[in-house]
């Protein structure tokens, strides 16, 4: 249904030496991100994992164009990025749906801003809504939906602009464990069906391993890229993959890296 403008395996997003320093009003500054470079390939599910406060949100906002980097640049599909745009679909950490718009109109919001034909928007949006499993809820308002359903709308809104890449900032962090696991499975299915490239952020290591083709582990103070890990678990990954030894190995590998960045001993971890 959606054509990728880049062939699978080619570089979709290039992050080049990104740094970010916040300057306080009364003088003094805080370096949140330092010298981050990596590449995301077309069709890849790329996950950034790191402890809370390591600058993940700041980084993703830079990619989206909501904040400007202090150093470096972002290249998407060969074009250097300046400012926000609908070539990226952003899934926010809190769902931030517009309460005065029903499900359908929340999902069409991005396309509406591009002044595309309304009828075409609506048809595409309805397809996306059924893709996220919300058939029949098009006329409902956000306050009438559960947390899981609102997060589905949040996903649908990002998919509905048919972006080159999806940027997701801990979209499932506020959901209960059961719902979160169901949503992870759903997300993988939707991404596979739409053949999208995803840059996904989380602080939960098992979520990262469950979803990712590759994981970038971020260290903290300042936020920096520690290492990129290939996740060689076969797909489809169902819940029982979590009980396999390879899954546990990968989780431990990520955990050890994060612990190092905190200056902790990996042995000190409770199982």
């Amino acid at each position: 249904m959606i054509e990728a403008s880049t062939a699978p395996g080619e570089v979709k997003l290039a992050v080049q030496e990104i740094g970010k320093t916040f300057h306080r009003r009364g003088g003094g500054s805080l370096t949140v991100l330092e010298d981050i470079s990596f590449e995301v390939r077309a069709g890849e599910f790329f996950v950034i994992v790191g402890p809370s406060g390591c600058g993940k949100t700041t980084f993703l906002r830079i990619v989206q164009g909501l904040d400007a980097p202090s150093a470096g640049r972002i290249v998407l599909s060969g074009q250097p990025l300046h400012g926000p745009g609908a070539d990226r679909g952003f899934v926010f950490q809190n769902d931030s749906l517009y309460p005065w718009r029903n499900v359908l109109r929340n999902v069409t919001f991005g396309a509406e801003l591009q002044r595309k034909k309304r009828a075409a928007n609506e048809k595409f949006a309805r397809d996306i809504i059924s893709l996220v499993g919300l058939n029949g809820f098009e006329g409902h308002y956000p306050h009438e939906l559960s947390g899981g359903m609102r997060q589905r709308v949040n996903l649908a809104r990002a998919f509905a602009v048919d972006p080159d890449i999806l940027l997701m900032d801990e979209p499932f962090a506020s959901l209960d464990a059961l719902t979160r696991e169901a949503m992870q499975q759903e997300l993988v299915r939707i991404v596979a069906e739409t053949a999208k490239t995803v840059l996904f952020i989380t602080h939960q290591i098992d979520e990262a391993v469950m979803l990712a083709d590759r994981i970038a582990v971020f260290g903290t103070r300042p936020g920096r890229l520690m290492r990129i890990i290939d996740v060689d678990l076969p797909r489809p990954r169902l819940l029982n993959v979590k009980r396999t030894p390879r899954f546990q190995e990968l989780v431990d590998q990520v955990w050890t890296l994060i612990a190092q960045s905190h200056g902790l001993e990996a042995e000190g971890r409770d199982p």
Partner: protein
Amino acid sequence: MSPQRFPERVMDTVTPKRPQPASPAQRISTWHRLWHAVKRPRVRRSLISLIVVIAGWEIVGRYVLTNPLFFVPLSDVILALIRLWGTGELQTHIAASFRAIGYGMALSIVFGIAFGIVMGASRTVADYTEVYVNALYAMPLVAIAPLLILWLGIGVASKVGVVFLISVFPILISTTSGVRNVDKHYLDVARAFGATPVQIVGKVLVPAALPFVITGIRLAIGRAIVGVVVGELFGATAGLGFLIYTSGQTFDVPALFAGILCLAIAGVVLTWALQRVEMRLVRWRPAPLED
């Protein structure tokens, strides 16, 4: 596939509500519907209080405050209303007052919302203007009304001016705070999807601030009614304020109360109309619970 794959679907996927077509048996008579309305607690309580007030007014006017220069029973007021309606005076006064309220409020709503958005969105504009807005908001209207009448003359223009001046500030101030209180995330979403500044105003700021705007208009209605009366007391040849003033001069107490009653009804009707508009515009908010 593991059976626990979509636990949330099971909980979430409730069949959406659809309105049922009315069967012939459900098409009930107007009386029946009225009776059902009366059985609702909110309607019933309003009705009971109305009956108590009407009866109390009549009894107090007839047996307690019997001096007719002081207070008159409701029945005398209604007779005065009928008399004034018969001569056509009442219609003239109501029309004159409502015209001034209508024009004045329309100006207030347009200007108050437009400038409120600018003040809410731009700190610079607010810094330059906020102090005057607050000064004028707190200014007792009677202090400006004579001046407006000097400037605009006796007639509809000065009344519209007074109504506008007194009713614009609640709308302006609450629109401003509505815009300032817009959730920062709502703006981020719009920017992330590439919204232009104009789109941000139209698609985020205005709808997000709408509940505040309506609160401002509600306050403005009460003040507009005060404004039109003040305008008509100082200089007018028609209007409910004029009716009240001249009736007072001629000791026609029933006609005086008739004017007051019309103003009270105007307030109730306008507030009710606003509630209807609000229900349509702010349908997305969770409905208040009714016991």
